[in-house]
């Protein structure tokens, strides 16, 4: 699709060319980080090295608009594919809190007040706390992360997120050894989220990751796209992005992060366990009855002929976490 009022960010601002050229190095190093972690290294330290590979010395600032520009310290590019436009990313959304049509979030999400916004971090950790979202982010440098995004509905996009590693936030809370999973919860506010007035899902939306998945360097908490703060329809003010899993795992508008000692309930899996598993890793070989996951449609393309890659193409970095697991059973 041709966009005439394209976002006022040139691609040169989004992605530093040098980092762009070094993207494979990042991929390789991030893969190495995971491998090291798997062999007993500290994931925290290793995660940093993978990301450092793509550090850009010059911070860039995107142009202004309705959203606030963000100070980006570094750029991490995991793909050389063409980015989807700002218009595509902000007008075609699954965010059932605002309605089940793809155009509903763009239409209704504007009424949601995202300031002030508190994120509660609790459960099995030494330092539980309630944070203003600004304070949660402040200690860390924002990074741009260009990721493929694969929806369970067999479409995909390429999105320039801005965020921080989820691991940084989790580590600060000092999870205890009992913390084996992390549970995330979306805001519950039917007055501003009309979709929540219907019993579509078991509101509020919840999602979860295993501890090692949550600490993986590719998992981020995003606060922006295209160098600016997130629009509500994309999960403002803060959302999860887990690029090797189907999009619904990347929970939006988070108000609570809880360390738990058992696999948490997740919204879609509760709604239809045979269609959606807890792991929901992108996997072309496992197609629960409703969908054929072997191929995908890269939007705005017409043909659904792109072969879907295992772990959405991030297998080098994440596959080791699932070594020995039956991915057909643990879909």
């Amino acid at each position, binding site marked *: *699709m*041709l966009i005439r009022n394209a976002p006022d960010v040139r691609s040169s601002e989004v992605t530093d060319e040098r980092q762009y050229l070094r993207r494979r190095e990042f991929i390789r190093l991030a893969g190495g980080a995971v491998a090291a972690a798997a062999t007993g290294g500290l994931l925290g330290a290793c995660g940093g090295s993978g990301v450092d590979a793509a550090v850009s010395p010059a911070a860039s600032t995107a142009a202004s608009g309705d959203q606030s520009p963000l100070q980006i310290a570094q750029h991490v590019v995991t793909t050389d594919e063409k980015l989807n436009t700002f218009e595509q990313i902000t007008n075609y959304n699954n965010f059932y809190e605002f309605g089940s049509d*793809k155009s509903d979030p763009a239409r209704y999400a504007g009424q949601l007040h995202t300031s002030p916004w508190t994120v509660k971090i609790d459960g099995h950790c030494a330092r539980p706390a309630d944070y203003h979202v600004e304070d949660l982010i402040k200690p860390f440098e924002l990074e741009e992360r260009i990721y493929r995004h694969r929806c369970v509905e067999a479409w995909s996009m390429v999105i320039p997120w801005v965020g921080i590693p989820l691991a940084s936030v989790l580590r600060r809370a000092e999870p205890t050894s009992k913390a084996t999973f992390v549970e995330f919860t979306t805001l519950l506010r039917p007055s501003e989220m009309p979709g929540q007035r219907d019993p579509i899902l078991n509101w509020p939306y919840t999602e979860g990751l295993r501890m090692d998945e949550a600490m993986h360097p590719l998992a981020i908490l995003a606060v922006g796209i295209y160098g600016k703060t997130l629009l509500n329809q994309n999960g403002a003010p803060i959302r999860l992005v887990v690029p090797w899993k189907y999009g619904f795992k990347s929970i939006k508008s988070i108000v609570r992060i809880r360390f738990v000692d058992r696999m948490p309930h997740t919204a879609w899996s509760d709604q239809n366990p045979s269609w959606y598993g807890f792991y929901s890793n992108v996997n072309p070989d496992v197609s629960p*009855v409703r969908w*054929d996951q072997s191929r995908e*449609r890269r*939007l705005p393309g017409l*043909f659904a002929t792109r072969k879907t890659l295992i772990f959405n193409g991030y297998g080098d970095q994440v596959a080791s976490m699932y070594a020995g697991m039956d991915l057909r059973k643990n879909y």
Partner: protein
Amino acid sequence: MPTAWLVWAALTDHLGANPAETLQLQTGRWALRLLLVTLAITPLRRLTGWNDAVRFRRMLGLFAFYYATLHFLIYLVLDQYFDWRAIVKDIAKRPFITMGFTALMLLVPLALTSTKGWIRRLGRRWQTLHRLIYVSAVCAVIHFIWKVKVVIGEPVLYAGILTVLLGFRVIWWLRRRTVRRVARPVRPSNLPVH
């Protein structure tokens, strides 16, 4: 017509971020809507006495078939790109595709025998054959319900409308049976003598 709108939207880039999905959804939606309108003709005639309505029935049915065919062609070309093996597997394995495909296949003989010549040739059997539209419409609604992730809104509405439209037929059929029984009451003398 919806086709004109879709063509216009496609040419002016108004189909959204996923144009293939928009085309797929709109053609399917119109196929089902037109099937329901076709099925509404007979109840409309009987309730309002507007007998001329039947003149539109064939055209409406054929338009339903037209949109159902477009819907399938979009699946064939945009979703599967002529991968026949994948299509066969898909139809066999995914219940909502099975249902949709059945709905379309049931419409094929109806479209083929919609000409005056065939109506004459088949006589009474034509009407019996064309009752397949009931089955097709039921399949189409189930296809829609099984397709969506959450069963609310449109698919429920269409299921409701179809239930009402088929409900008329059931009521009339039951009534006809009762009338027939009253007209030919069973007399004791008809009973076999032991």
